């Protein structure tokens, strides 16, 4: 694949490049940004500030809760043992199991949603530059059309320009 990008040593110039790209009409979603740190304060990509992860967690918790509540109760009901006059299903202990399962559900769901949302767990695409972890900030676009190319390079001039043929 082709890509054109520049590496910046400081967030400011990176931010400027992004603005420039936007100005020349590149959609935010097409701009590829990689940074060694969150640098959330710079809001490289305002569109990414929204997430539904906490609701996923709640859902996961719900599933865990149901499981945790049914596992002991059902086994106690379906395979009852004489408890010497005590109730077969013991609510209080089951609450403990339920609680643990709920939390487990929530946590697992969070991780799964993270993997999904952050597109983790897949092979590294060619379009990546190890220097990002040398504290460079990468700004660029994938598969620029030849028409765009000069403007893009113009927009990215602030940094050390690179292209992937």
């Amino acid at each position: 694949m082709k890509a054109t990008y520049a590496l910046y040593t400081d967030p400011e110039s990176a931010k400027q490049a992004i603005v420039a790209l936007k100005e020349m009409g590149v959609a935010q979603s097409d701009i590829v940004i990689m940074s060694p740190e969150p640098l959330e304060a710079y809001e490289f990509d305002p569109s990414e500030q929204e997430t539904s992860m906490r609701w996923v967690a709640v859902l996961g918790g719900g599933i865990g809760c149901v499981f945790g509540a049914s596992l002991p109760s059902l086994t106690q009901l379906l395979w009852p043992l004489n408890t010497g006059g005590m109730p077969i299903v013991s609510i209080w202990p089951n609450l403990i199991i339920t609680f643990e399962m709920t939390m487990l559900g929530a946590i697992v769901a969070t991780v799964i949603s993270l993997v999904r949302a952050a597109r983790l767990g897949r092979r590294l695409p060619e379009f990546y530059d190890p220097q990002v972890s040398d504290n460079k900030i990468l700004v660029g676009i994938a598969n620029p059309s030849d028409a765009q190319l000069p403007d893009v390079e113009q927009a990215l001039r602030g940094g050390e320009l690179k292209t992937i043929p």
Partner: protein
Amino acid sequence: MNLATDSRITADLLRPLLGTSGKYYVTVGLLGAVTLMGLVAWGYQMYYGIGLTGLNSPVFWGFYLINFVFWIGISHAGTLISAILRLIDAPWRRPVTRCAEAITAFALVIGGTLPLIHLGRPWLFFYLIPFPDGRGLWPNFRSPLMWDFFAINTYLLASTLFLFLPMIPDFALIRDRATGIRRTIYGALSVGWRGTPKQWHRLESAMQIMAIAIIPVAVSVHTIVSFDFAMAVVPMWHSTVFGPYFVAGAIFSGIAGLIIAMAILRRVLRLEQYLTALHFQKLGQLLLLMSLLWGYFVFSERLTIWYGNDNHEMPVFWATFTGEYAPFFWVMVACNFVLPLILLSNQKLRTISGCVVASCGVVLGMWLERFLIVVPSLSYRQLPYTWGSYMPGWPEIAVMVSTFAAMALLYTLFVKFIPIISIWEFKDGTHPGPEPRPIAEPRTLPARGAEAAGEAL
């Protein structure tokens, strides 16, 4: 954003992963051998029977469960603390969190093994796992041991993930510097991390949610551990204060453990500038707080028992207060209450070494506390005819020693493969705002810095 600082941080924190001295192998070897000793002792005990321990009637529980409670307690250092610190977003948390969370993960693994060693027939432990077998038999969910089973496994999984997630960017960082097999491994571990704003943001919010979820789990775990005792009608076990009492104690010993670990890391990994006096100051204050809390719990527990003057509980009370177990009791009070009070309440004494000394005292004291909870109560049960006492057998001692060795071993290996301080979080902490910070005047390099690269650890 400052390139020089960032790369210096990167270099400092990656140093242990790069150089490996002979000392390191010797350490690992020794620790491995001692750990091995514990396993050997366990095998020997399985062969001849649990009778090799000092356990007897009436003291059916001994060192194994004391250490179980102890390590589960230690495990409350990490995740709980770092979760709280994350939520209140205390900036000084950044260098601390990972080594704290690592303690949790390892302590849980060790603590979780001890009940198995404690079993009379460990090879049948799978009876505890709820799975549909042909006999239509399920574990008994009424048993506090089952609650333990669930709670500890939940906690272990949760805190492992909690430890793992923030490591991903660092893995990516190492991936980009490594070659060959290492690159593949770290590449796999970094699950294709690129550092896009989306990834960063999702990671941050995931950590937020996990932090919220994991605190109640941590609290529940040690509460349930306390239920192992509180659910039995044994003198001085059957108590409502046990839940919070244990949780407080756990965090207490956890912080102490964390302080000791940090002090060692600081010295060995040359992290003086990352784990500074400030951190020990903060943790010291926390430790002092917990010490007071612990003292409050002990007082209210003891007072209630004493005032209630229950026939069956008083023998235990007096045995620990003035009787055969009194020495342990008073040493415990000294270590857990007096010593921290002296060392930590005073700004001058709350130095790094002061904190470490106090922490060592607390770890000892908290171990004694668990001993005093388990043994005296079992020695003095309701029927005086059955009273007895307990003396550990050699496998119990061997296993106990090896648990500490195992902790050190796991930690040593951990710091060898993973930066013990979260690099990206630390960097992130160094420049919160858009406008770059002024760079201080260049100063001459301290002599130590030069050879640092060569003989790291």
